[in-house]
């Protein structure tokens, strides 16, 4: 058997950096890898859903009693669920940090970097796989939410729009945690490093309680940070009320986070 070069003329452009379809193909190959892992190791999916389900049930039944309906104007479960959808997506995005740190540690990223593939594809593929998982997790949370009394006050279309907003925001957070994972380089540290990024965003927010119940110095941050803004947008889309301002702010946050962290993560990827 005689082996010749893969192709002689034009081998370089075929896989050159300028080929956008090449980058998409490479990203899909990497995303496929992530989805196979999800299917083959169901405990990944199970454990990534247990935590948000517990949060939902704890807040619904433990704290639900102390948040008075007169303060928020609707039953607490209706207030809580839009926030929980957002919180779930932020927790889930930590998977990108852990996954990439693991690939870095096992040498898989070095192998990818020695291949003639698009440099951005490893990260783009990973975040797309996370997005697919989030579709499943958010759908599950919606089902459980309805089972524990959550009701949409607007209509199916605004609610669906709210869920798309949650997924977009989750996608932007995947890039944040991808950057964290590549910076720290091992899965245990990635998990530990993700917490201080995530905790203030999730807890100093309007996810669980109205911002107006917080001390004044915290309200400024809690009102405008991306998790609160997105939770308020999703809340407006499912409960009614003025939506446009929150939706635009949430879209702007997601776009801004991707615009900053995607190049940062790719930059870091090329140097790990």
């Amino acid at each position, binding site marked *: 058997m005689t082996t010749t070069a893969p192709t002689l003329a034009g081998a370089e452009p075929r896989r050159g950096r300028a080929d956008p379809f090449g980058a998409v193909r490479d990203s899909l190959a990497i995303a496929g890898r992530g989805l196979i892992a999800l299917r083959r190791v169901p405990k990944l999916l199970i454990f990534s859903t247990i935590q948000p389900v517990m949060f939902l049930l704890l807040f619904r039944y433990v704290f639900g009693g102390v948040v008075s309906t007169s303060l928020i104007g609707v039953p607490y479960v209706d207030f809580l669920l839009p926030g929980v959808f957002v919180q779930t997506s932020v927790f889930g995005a930590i998977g990108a940090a852990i996954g990439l740190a693991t690939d870095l540690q096992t040498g898989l990223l070095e192998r990818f*970097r020695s291949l*003639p593939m698009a440099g951005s594809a490893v990260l783009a593929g990973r975040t797309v796989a996370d997005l697919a998982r989030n579709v499943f997790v958010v759908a599950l949370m919606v089902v459980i939410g309805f089972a524990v009394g959550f009701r949409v006050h607007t209509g199916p279309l605004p609610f669906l729009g709210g869920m798309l907003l949650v997924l977009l925001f989750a996608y932007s957070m995947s890039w944040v945690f991808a950057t964290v994972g590549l910076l720290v380089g091992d899965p245990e540290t990635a998990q530990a490093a993700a917490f201080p990024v995530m905790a203030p965003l999730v807890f100093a927010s309007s996810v669980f309680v109205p911002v107006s119940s917080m001390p004044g110095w915290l309200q400024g941050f809690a009102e405008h940070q991306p998790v609160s803004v997105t939770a308020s947008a999703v809340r407006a889309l499912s409960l009614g009320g003025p939506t446009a301002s929150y939706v635009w702010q949430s879209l702007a946050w997601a776009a801004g986070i991707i615009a900053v962290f995607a190049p940062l993560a790719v930059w870091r990827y090329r140097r790990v």
Partner: protein
Amino acid sequence: MTVTPIDPFASSPWRRSTPGDQAVLVEDLTKRFDSVMALDGIDFAVPPGSVFGLLGPNGAGKTTVIRILTTILRPDGGHAEVLGIDVARDPAAVRHVIGLAGQYAAVDPNLTGQENLRLIGRLAQMAGRDLRARSAELLDRFDLAGAADRPVRTYSGGMRRRLDVAAALVTRPPVLFLDEPTTGLDLQSRGELWQMIRELVAEGTTVLLTTQYLEEADRLAQRIAVVDHGRVIANDTPAALKAHLGSTVIELGMGEEARAARALELLAASLPARPEREAATLRLVSQDGARVLIGVLRSLDDHDLTPATLAVREPSLDDVFLSLTGRRAEDAAGDGHQPQEGAQ
């Protein structure tokens, strides 16, 4: 299967040598990590279709050389090329002609063996039919056909390492880099991997491998560069290195230093090369181990200096170092790769 020297990038603007030169050429390569000079002016050349061994202790700079040649790391200074393509100026072109198997089995434990190979092939834009045939061929050849559809997490360490090497070969690279390919393998798996490397080279692949084992470099490589603190301290054929060194190492434990010193004086007078003394132990290296051993023991016994312990063995990396540098091989920091445990 024959592989003719491949030159797919004759038109690359950074190409400066002509086909038929060295498969890998490294000139005065330097790399610094913070305050550590990981590479302090490395030079060597690998002729096409041969195995070249980089031999040295942990931290000598071997992995840094491999990472620069596989475009993972940029050099600070000097020049490196693979098949005439400059790794710093045209890394994308270099990636088309190389395969890399690193120190740790870099395969996805959740994918099956077959899926791992196909993922690598897809990322290298191989055509579907060719890729299916190629991955089946490699799984068969690396004795993994029976495990092709099992997730890699169920593989043994040896199987993972074989799959890792197979993954490096999916694209039929003319130049293959193997970074400590047999570290952590049992003796049988090591022998199998050596055999596979020989077969690849017989087919025309050029292999650059790093190792900490003199025996491994000796068995596989046509030429060995000994690396220490980011420099090449010897570059020769295994036969010449061993001729310089001697083929047998004899270690005599004399029990106490005074006796060892007396024995040293006695033997230095009668032997062509002066033995080394380290505390109460004498070490001598010889081309003619059996005859020297008999003479040494007889002479020591005559003077009432019978050794307390005796070891006769093949030379190790340590002995090469002692012979070349006058000191033992020591692990150094700054080889530039993160500690990566648990991949086995």
